[in-house]
């Protein structure tokens, strides 16, 4: 069994924080229970005032009791906030942490089934949805007890009014609030209309130049206004429906009061139904109305939590609800951060790369024939192996499948003759490091981006030099402490590429893997980088490239065509024996020299 039913999932979250959860329940009963004593006190007050049914205590004592009850309940509601707040934020943290951990454990290229933006909304909204559904459990539990107590008290006072007014109210309010499901569809329409407006605004400002050059801005703005109109209509429907449902909730107290007045007219005149009784019934009305709302919230919330749980596990292939609910110590309650993890030290001598072998490696993109089939490849310590081929030949796919960034469908990878069972977990420093074709940096300083948790600071100068980045960094206003901006926007593409290379150098792995540096680096800069890399003795490197300078350096070249190896060997040999290599060598149309040079 790989999935937990929603209630068992929630139960796991509760078992992680049983103390605060139980306390929250107790506080909820005390907080929501306030109307019960309050109604009794008001009843005693009015009945004593009119002398219809004097209570045993004086009216002053009743007022004091009223104040004490209110203040007590208010204080306890603070406790509820604290306990629920602790449980809520602790559970949110756990789910988000476990979800990201699952994504990081997967094959990075296909670890998410949604775009980063869409995935983010699951981390935010779906996780919220699951945890908020537990709030509904607490509120429901708190209310159910007081509603029972209130109903018992009222039944003993006047069974007819209780049954004729209160039970219908619970049913009506529950049904009306269940109609909130409809609300979800209105809300979706309204959000879709909103997305069309913001999407169009984005299009407008991305195409400003084209619009200005065609004097088309007035027409485009007219379209924006049309989309705005559609959004207004959708939003109106949404808020009108919400207002109607909310109105039922808030107005039910008034309608109930009216119904009580109608039914009690006779009894009140006859003195069988006192002003105090009336005050008590009206006080309980609100609590009971809320109960109907709570039932609906609980039911809708529970189902929503189930949907959200499905969306969360569907986001990360291979992740289960067990992974999500796994009890992990996060120390979020401790005010000071814990020490950073110690990343693995240098590879043990026995594990140091002697040779890496790939046999029959196969990965086809689902539903297509594109990919790689039966790739054989060997890299020995100290050698430079270059993978080359046309666009779409499968070069990047080969690197990804080898490093576990994609799940290989067949084939074996062995490290020093031992088969690697889980490449995704195996490859990485100190064994290997990789620079993707389009690397990404994160907000923060250049230095943090390069170190990414690697502890020693002094390695960074060497890494910057090795990555041919030292002059760029010196030219930056704050050197390596320069904040690179979201996704590194303040750096040029070439600088980002070399920062990613520096990320590898600080880790000094056994095997360097590069995916096509030429897309962002000019020939000269790339040459410097290779020079410095191979100045390090014993460097082993696997790279994708189509540049002549790189191919000339290679000890061995692997030529890919349509996902298969068509030839492998030293350049000189391939140039005489391999037609595809000859074509690639000759057809290398590479913008190499500058006009001004």
């Amino acid at each position, binding site marked *: 069994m790989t999935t937990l039913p929603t209630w068992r999932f929630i139960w796991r979250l509760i078992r992680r924080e049983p103390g605060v959860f139980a306390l929250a329940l107790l506080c909820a009963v005390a907080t929501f229970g306030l109307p019960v004593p309050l109604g009794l006190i008001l009843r005693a007050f009015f009945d004593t005032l009119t002398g219809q049914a004097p209570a045993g205590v004086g009216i002053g004592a009743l007022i004091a009791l009223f104040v004490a009850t209110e203040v007590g309940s208010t204080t306890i509601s603070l406790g509820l906030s604290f306990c629920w707040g602790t449980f809520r934020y602790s559970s949110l943290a756990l789910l988000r*942490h476990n979800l990201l951990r699952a994504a990081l454990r997967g094959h990075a290229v296909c670890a998410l089934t949604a775009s980063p933006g869409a995935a983010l909304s699951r981390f935010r909204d779906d996780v919220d949805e699951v945890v908020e559904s537990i709030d509904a459990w607490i509120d429901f539990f708190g209310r159910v007890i007081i509603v029972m107590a209130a109903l018992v008290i009222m039944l003993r006072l006047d069974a007819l009014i209780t049954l004729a007014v209160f039970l219908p109210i619970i049913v009506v309010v529950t049904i009306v609030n269940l109609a909130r499901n409809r609300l979800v569809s209105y809300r979706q329409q309204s959000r879709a209309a909103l997305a069309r407006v913001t999407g169009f605004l984005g299009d407008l400002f991305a195409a400003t130049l084209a619009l200005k*050059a065609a004097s088309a801005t007035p027409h485009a703005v007219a379209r924006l206004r049309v989309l705005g109109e559609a959004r207004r209509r959708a939003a109106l429907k949404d808020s009108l429906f919400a207002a109607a449902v909310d109105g039922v909730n808030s107005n039910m107290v008034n309608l109930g009061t009216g119904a009580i007045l109608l039914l009690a007219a006779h009894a009140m005149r006859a003195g069988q139904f006192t002003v105090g009784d009336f005050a008590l019934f009206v006080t309980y009305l609100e609590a009971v109305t809320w109960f109907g709302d709570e039932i609906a919230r609980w039911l809708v919330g529970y189902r929503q939590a189930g949907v959200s749980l499905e969306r969360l596990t569907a986001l990360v292939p291979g992740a289960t609800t067990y992974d999500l609910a796994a009890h992990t110590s996060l120390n979020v309650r401790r005010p000071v951060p814990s020490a950073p993890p110690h990343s693995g030290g240098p590879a043990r001598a026995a594990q140091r790369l002697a040779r890496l072998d790939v046999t029959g490696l196969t990965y086809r993109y689902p539903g297509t024939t594109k990919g790689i089939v039966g790739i054989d490849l060997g890299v020995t310590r100290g050698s430079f192996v270059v993978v080359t081929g046309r666009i779409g030949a499968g070069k990047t796919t080969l690197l990804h499948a080898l490093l576990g960034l994609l799940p290989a469908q067949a084939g074996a990878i062995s490290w020093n003759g031992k088969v690697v069972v889980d490449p995704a977990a195996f490859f990485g420093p100190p064994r290997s490091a990789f620079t993707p074709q389009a690397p990404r940096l994160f907000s923060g300083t250049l230095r943090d981006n390069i170190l990414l948790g690697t502890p020693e600071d002094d390695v960074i100068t060497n890494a910057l030099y090795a990555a041919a980045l030292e002059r760029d960094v010196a030219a930056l206003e704050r050197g390596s402490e320069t904040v690179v901006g979201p996704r590194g926007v303040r750096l040029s593409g070439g600088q980002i590429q070399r920062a990613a290379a520096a990320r590898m150098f600080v880790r000094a792995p056994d095997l360097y893997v590069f995916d096509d540096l030429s897309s962002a680096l000019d020939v000269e800069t790339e040459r410097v980088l290779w020079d410095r890399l191979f100045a390090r003795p014993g460097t082993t490197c696997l790279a994708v490239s189509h540049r002549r300078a790189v191919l000339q350096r290679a000890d061995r070249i692997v030529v890919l065509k349509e996902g298969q190896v068509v030839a492998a060997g030293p350049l000189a040999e391939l140039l005489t024996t391999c037609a595809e290599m000859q074509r690639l060598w000759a057809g290398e149309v590479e913008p190499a020299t500058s006009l001004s040079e």
Partner: protein
Amino acid sequence: MLDTPYRQLYRAYLLPRWPRLALLAALLLGITGLELLNPQIVRYFIDTAQAGGAVSVLVRAAALFLGVALLGQAVRVAETYVAENLGWSATNALRGDLAAHCLDLDLSFHHAHTPGELIERIDGDVTALANFFSRFVIQVIGSGLLLLGALALLLREDWRAGALLLAFSVMALIVMSRARSMGARYALAARAASAALFGFLEERLAGLIDIQAVGARDYVLYQLRGHLRELFQHGRASMLAGSALYGATESIFTIATAAVLALGVYLYHAGAMSVGAVYLIVQYTAMLRQPVRQLTRQARDFQNASASITRVQQLYAVPRSLVDGTGRDLPDGPLAVEFQQVSFAYAVDAPGNPAEVPGGAERVLHGVSFRVPPGTVLGVLGRTGSGKTTIARLLCRLDDPTEGAVLVGGRDVRDLRLADLHRRVGLVTQEVQIFGASVRDNLTLFRPSIPDEQIVRALAELGLGAWYLALPDGLDTELAPGGQGLSAGEAQLLAFARVFLRDPAVVVLDEASSRLDAVTERQVERAVDRLLAGRTGIIIAHRLATVRRADAILILEDGQIVEEGPREALARDPRSRFASLLQTGLLEVRA
């Protein structure tokens, strides 16, 4: 309370909608009145019952109560409708005006602000104003009315009860507005922690490959725990602060209720008040909580809205430097293009001076002069940053030259009306922007008057005939934003079709096919030929093949012309730069 900026917005966007505003005010008065009426009915009921009045009178009072409750519900829904409608109409108008204003601003403004940022300022800030527009004044007045009404009715009942609750209300307003600003601090910290967490997550989710590539998983999870801890601490604190704030108001009203109860006992025993009246003042006391809460909440919303209004005003205050000309229309037929000693420099203080202008050297063109006779084609070559693109922009008057003049058809472009200039000069850029809209809208750029047959003919002429026939809904087919689902060649041809439809006299191709691979480029060539036929052309390129059809060649370097002449003559002259380029086949390094 309302400063000038608020008044300006109200005058521009709410006053023109005064009938709805008046209706809203009427509905609000109705709601307030109905709310104040109901306790009076209950009091009448209780006193009548206590005095042994007729059952039929009691039943009628109860029915009236129910009627008022139902009417109240209906009026409230109607109020929501009118208020939301008003808010959306007003903010939609504001959004449209702001977008139009921003689109009219200079290109330097657009270099400095990303589309995402402008979306946030036009949609985000204006949406934050929606409540301000539709509800603020109305609710402040409404809450004030309810508060004053309840207090007035209490005073009418008994001056001591009225005075007591007036004092409590004032106290509650003061305490709550103080406490709220304290609570806002916590809420702000929680929001900041949440924004930091999701910013962090978005970047990591987009960078999973990079993280795995260098084995930084544990470190990323460690960083995540830091963000989660921040959100835990600030989120819980904010929750507690909110609940303490709630408790504080509750406590004030608890004391008020207790005081009213005691006063009621005293007055009842003194014979100054009936039991129904005691019940009434307890009801009114409970009723006071809502407007007091509402008023303090509006005070906070007002602060939030102020920030948005300030940003909207700032956006409006950005000036636009290009002034539309007033001259006559250009003559029909092919037009000559001429640059006379044109220099161009970005203003030093221009926001977002483009990065391609290296430190301080803001001068992009320097004394450039050339002439393209009607119906001929000029090829402009040069490396990135040499000023090629600026030529295109000056010609389309997206910027004005700092010195010199740009002439089209012998007339200074600054004298022409922009709409007329753009009708006769068409520009195709390297980036083809596809809108998330129908094929028709993408081609006409939302111009309503172009007949479908003309569009279909243009597509056929440019080699998109087969593509058009394959569209599921013809010209109504929706294209995905960003051009997903279109090949690069198709997107490029669509951009040509946009220009072709307007039948300009001058066509400027700015690196128009540089993104295409060689095979696709050949497919596009025929369309380029068709587009340039009988027109004056300027082709800005970094590939030599692209200027193959040019009559003359111009090579730019660092904003100056370094070579100029008929293409064939230059190609024959072995000492020319053009000839040596033709030999090496190499042009430039793409930045």
